[in-house]
């Protein structure tokens, strides 16, 4: 349970302060399943139109327009269609989906049911990150209640609409958050990405047309249906509809998750919600949307508004909403190393540049940070990162290369300060270890 902050606009998180929202009774007491009721009375096309009108863009990281994604699913299909919820939240710096899973699991269920109605699917799966074992129990409990009360299963609440829904756990692989790898994993195979095309809307889980959405995206659907797409869109700037959950971590006085309208100034997030920089230190860098996004220097970040287009304009991505604040006492070489340790550990190994490149960079950065750096390494690491970028099978390679390249670009001097024989200038003061739980 979290109490709302005065600057927050709670849409997805509107039940986060309601102690019993994770029970069916509590959910029903606060408008629960009213959106479903409304949606089932609408033609499927109208539901999709409403979602399109909301301007909702995927909250998992890529920011693809949700309504458009739903509209790609063919109306007629010889194979069964599916709705999948991507609850494999693994992006370092991101911890928002877990709150929805914990405080408002029925909102996810309701969002999936509405999606099922919209695309003509009758089966769904919620794929929950392996480390979120306790949330799997929470979701199983919610599903059992929903099933017992006739909100999941055959002929839902007498509407004639059937929808079966199951929760499934991952086994601790970041790659399984990639939508096609998630489907492989859910099918019981090794979690590696699939060739695209075909895209999931045409051939996804079990070869059937599939919509796969992030937890927050699906939880945004019921309020959109209840209040109308235009209502939701009005929260943010044009094409960046609505609110979203921002996860603030790093060197601020108060870390946390807050729901803010898109376009919210980053400076206000740090100062007003985060309570300012920790110990009054100077801001050095900001990771704007999870560890996969290029880092922004403090001066660029300071004037940034947090919406998809503004962040793209300064060369990064809004990503998953994981904002990591880095202060002046942080060694950026160590920061790059810590990020690369994560990606080397999480590369699935399928394609050559990602498998070999992340290991190369990780070993080089380790040596470099330990005082074994050669002058040639700086440009070599840049070139190795460039050779990964855009040449891998899936986006994991890009995710490893982009932050590294941004660090090499903006903090090149710190690398030169580390060259052979020199100890890390930040010494014991370095606090980069705060990034990522892996």
């Amino acid at each position: 349970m979290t109490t709302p902050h005065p600057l927050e606009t709670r849409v997805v998180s509107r039940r986060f302060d309601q102690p019993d929202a994770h029970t069916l009774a509590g959910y029903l007491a606060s408008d629960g399943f009213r959106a479903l009721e409304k949606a089932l009375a609408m033609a499927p096309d109208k539901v999709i139109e409403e979602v399109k009108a909301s301007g909702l863009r995927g909250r998992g990281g890529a920011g693809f327009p949700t309504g458009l994604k739903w509209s790609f699913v063919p109306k007629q299909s010889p194979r069964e269609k599916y709705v999948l919820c991507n609850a494999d939240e693994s992006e370092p710096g991101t911890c928002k989906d877990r709150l929805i899973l914990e405080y408002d699991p029925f909102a996810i269920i309701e969002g999936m049911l509405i999606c099922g109605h919209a695309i003509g699917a009758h089966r769904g799966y919620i794929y929950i990150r392996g480390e979120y074992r306790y949330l799997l129990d929470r979701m199983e409990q919610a599903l059992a209640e929903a099933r017992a009360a006739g909100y999941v299963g055959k002929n839902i609440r007498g509407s004639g609409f059937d929808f079966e829904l199951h929760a499934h756990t991952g086994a601790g692989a970041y790659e399984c958050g990639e939508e096609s790898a998630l489907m492989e994993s859910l099918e019981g195979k090794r979690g590696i990405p699939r060739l695209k095309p075909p895209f999931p809307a045409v051939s996804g889980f079990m070869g059937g047309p599939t919509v796969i959405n992030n937890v927050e995206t699906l939880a945004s659907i019921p309020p959109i249906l209840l209040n109308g797409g235009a209502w939701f869109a009005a929260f943010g700037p044009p094409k960046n509809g609505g609110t979203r959950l921002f996860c603030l971590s790093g060197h601020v006085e108060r870390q946390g998750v807050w729901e803010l309208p898109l376009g919210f100034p980053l400076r206000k997030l740090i100062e007003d919600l985060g309570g300012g920089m920790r110990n009054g230190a100077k801001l050095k860098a900001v990771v704007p949307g999870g560890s996969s996004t290029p880092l922004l220097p403090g001066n660029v970040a300071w004037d940034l508004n947090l919406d998809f287009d503004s962040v793209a304009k300064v060369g990064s991505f809004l990503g998953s909403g994981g904002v990591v604040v880095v202060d002046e006492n942080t060694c950026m070489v160590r920061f790059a190393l810590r990020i690369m340790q994560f990606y080397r550990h999480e590369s699935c190994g399928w394609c050559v540049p990602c498998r070999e490149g992340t290991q190369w960079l990780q070993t080089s950065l380790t040596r470099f940070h330990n005082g074994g750096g050669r002058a040639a390494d700086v440009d070599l690491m840049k070139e190795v990162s460039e050779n990964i970028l855009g040449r891998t099978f899936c986006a994991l390679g890009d995710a490893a290369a982009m932050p590294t390249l941004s660090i090499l670009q903006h903090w090149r001097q710190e690398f030169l300060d580390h060259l052979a024989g020199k100890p890390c200038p930040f010494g014991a003061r370095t606090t980069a270890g705060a990034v990522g739980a892996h």
Partner: protein
Amino acid sequence: MADPALVHLTVNGQPLQVPAGTLLIEACKQHGIEVPSFCYYPNLSLQAACRMCLVEIEKMPKLQTACTVVVSEGMVVNSDSETVHRARKSAIEFILTNHPLDCPVCDAGGECELQDMTFKYGAEQGRFVEPKRHREEQQWSPVVYFDRPRCILCYRCVRACGEGMDVWALGVANRGINATIIPSHQDHLECEECGNCIDICPVGALTSGAYRYQTRPWEMQHVGAICTFCGDGCKTTLGVRNGEILRGDNRDKSGINGDFLCIKGRYGLDFTRHPERLKQPLARRDGELQPVSWGYALETAAKRWREIQKAQGAIGVIGSTRILNEEAYTLQKFARQVLGTPHLDHHRTADFPALFDALAGRGAESLARLDDLKTAPAVLLVGGDPTPQHPLTAWNLRWGYRQHKTRLYVLNSGDIKLRRQAYRYAQVASLAAAVRYLNGEGEAQSAPLTGVAEPSEKRWPQTPAAEVARLDEGLQDFRARLRQEQDVIIVFSGDIAGDSVRDLVAFGNSLSGQTRYLALADNANARGAADMGLYPDLLPGYVPVAAGQAGLNLEQMLAALPRQGLASLYVVGANPFRSHPVAAGDLKQTFLVVQDLFLTETARQADLVFPALCAYEKAGTVTNTGGQVQPQRRGGGCEGAKSDLEILHRLAAAMGEAAWGAADPDRTLQEIRAQVKGYDLPLAKLLAGEAPLALPLNGRVPRAAADLPLRPHHDTLFTAGTLGRYSATLNSVMEGRADKR
């Protein structure tokens, strides 16, 4: 106007035209533009893992993998730009980061795709200065070794094993930099040991226990031979050093089998080096077989046979299903003209005379090549188990199932592995009755079923008792569906013969569309032996002998031995006493001459033994079970032994046939082309290895007075009649299995 089925694109400024649906990498290859790749392999699933084939395509922001992009009209591609070259160089650099540069001791050195590509596309110097990751080499089976650091994870082996062989013994474990290929059983493989994974490996990660560390590829001569085991006629390229055959593979994808070989074709050929190979003629003296000179042996045989001829004693001749066409033809000529005997036969494993009788009056359109199985819309397989007995046939059937959705109807008395690819599967107690039923005679009940499988039931299901009742219906459905097919290839083994074959052809001919036939016979030249007239009642080309002139068949000859009914028996490359044991006393009055590679059960009882060369050691032609004729080339040698052709010619000379002259396979081939109807094949095509089809359809073939039951070997994956027993590799695989039980 432009053909809508063709797509026009531009690659490096060059306009190309290819069929719609072609992959970009194949389109480039067809037009001589090399797009390098490791993980892409034709006819296996797409991986896009090695990132070697990245090219620039206009209107696409990122480089694209040519192995996954399907060509589209107006596509503009650049595979030769600075960006593309940089991408290739970097892909090679990444692959080499953890690849050991132990090329000087690696088996693949000199024929390694990574080596070639590094020379062509790679950097002159490595920039990776971190320590490489090392792992110890592992032995996974008697033939498969895995050197993990060398592996570049192209997943070709995984796909060749799974998709190609339907064995699925290789997989991928771990993730990231720790990802590795793993065998089916923790630390070892239990598979069909075909070795396709080894030959498809672009580097030296998978190496062969039968070949490793013996030589370098450039020290060998590479000779295109035809495998001497089953009747499918796979081409195997022999690696020969100093007259010794060190390996067989078909990496160059020449021949009717592409790069496929089974364990026998790839590793069974080490029988050529077996220490018990006969290298000197042997004659029985004082009850013991003792080495003698060739001159003595030939003179002895000629002298005894002349005496027997004078005394009007009967001479029997049993030929081989492994000797070459020229030798089989010469053997029947020797028997009929020099020995003057009609008692001639061979070990029969398929009823070719019945098939060609049933097909009398028809032409090439009624015969199927093995290749046709890859694209056939429907195949009916009656009897046999191609997976172990005809591995290429099975490979092609799986290919058709995978690439062309071939509907495979299996009619068998057992449960065979191809059931996994079957569209309909009927397991019947009596194949003859089932075939009769198919042909519309009798009731389904006369061919009781034990199971009919749907295609979805992939894993050899047991028939639940409750379903037995509908099995009868199953055979009706089986027949009804077959009758709706428009283009069927009927494949049958030696499990049916005589009237059953005629029933089957009658059924096939009753179908409305095109029907083609393929009979499966064991051993490399079983079809050649039949075509060349190693029959007591049929001359070459299935031409009947004059009425009343038919001799004794194989079983009649063997039955005559205890009654002292044969004064001499001449056995060439066969081992009849293995299946028909003969007591020493039964041979007291019979002069037994055996010509073979080893002291077989038959040779041990002989009075005279001629050491023969094996198929890999001589030149000539062989005919595979489907009738395709291919050249056999001399790969190795065996000091002291002679080819069967040469032995026959020398025997003829010793018998006083001066006109025969010296053995010359080319001259004999000319004689066959002139004399044997259906063998007037275009010489250029034949010698180029295009495997032209022999067409010995020469009218009705009368039924023999006495039917000789067929005796198929029913070989397993690791056995091949008598010959396979002398392969150290085949034996080691079987012993390895026994140890694990």
